[in-house]
């Protein structure tokens, strides 16, 4: 229980190397993975655009993003509250996208471009 007890002074003058992670990911391995997926999406980009290529391109982008967030930004080691914050961002953006989609993308254009 003693680690849980933090007086306010501790909160003000936080000890200098301010991390309390229990481990570190192998950063180089993560970087190689990132480059690998990047190369994959680059190659796929030269094929004509279809549903499959789009899924591959943005699937790898999403996976790369999770790699960066989880390993480089150490989300892996953060408490649930931070996870909730990150997931809330996605929830809000998806809500926005699909709320607007019928009006902008799926709407029939009735304005003739100049």
């Amino acid at each position, binding site marked *: 229980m003693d680690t849980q007890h933090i007086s306010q002074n501790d909160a003000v003058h936080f000890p200098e*190397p301010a991390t309390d992670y229990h481990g570190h990911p192998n950063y180089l391995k993560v970087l190689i993975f990132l*480059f690998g997926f990047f190369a994959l999406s680059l190659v796929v980009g030269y094929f004509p655009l279809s549903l499959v290529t789009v899924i591959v391109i*943005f699937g790898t*982008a999403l996976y790369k993003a999770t790699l960066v*967030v989880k390993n480089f930004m150490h989300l892996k080691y953060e408490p649930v509250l931070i996870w909730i914050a990150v997931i809330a*961002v996605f929830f809000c953006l998806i809500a926005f996208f699909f709320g607007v989609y019928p009006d902008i993308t799926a709407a029939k254009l009735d304005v003739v471009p100049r």
Partner: protein
Amino acid sequence: MENQRSLSVPIIRVPQGRLAMWVLIAGELMIFGGLIACYLLYRLRYPEWADQAAHTSTLIGALNTIVLLTSSFTVVKAHEAANKMDLKKVVLWLSVSIGGGLLFLVNKGIEYTTEISHGFTFSSPHLQAGGDTIGSLFWSFYFFMTGLHGAHVIAGMVVMFLALLNARKGKNLHRVELAGMYWHMVDLIWIFLFPLLYIAK
């Protein structure tokens, strides 16, 4: 025991600087996410934007992705060194990361120069005069998204530079991590901008 428990603070174990950074990053991601959502909504509405996207330089974009991914790696190495109180390495890795940011901006500058010299500007009057008004909207988005991202690159470099100045004197080493987190966010946004603007044609 019960009494002791009620006395303790069930704090979530995040130092306040890092917590604030997460909140800031969530806010920034909402700004960029909203912008990307707007772009996607229009992109799906106008398949003809593919013709405009063909004019972006995949080579420079790919180069910039490599630069940003690598500098993201070096900044996390700086953070690792900061944990070991290895000041020299902190300064080295941070300098490499700032150099990566500079390289990114130089590439971006070359890219912008080429595009502008071909008449693709923020409002692209040359496309509008040619009747391709919808195409000009692509370039508005392109310059706004990459420009806003570029502004964040500059901000990230300034933050890393300040952390470097502190780290040289062995002060405020936790700032290395915070500056690094901001830099990862810049990288994160680019991970999405690159396929949106350069690959998916």
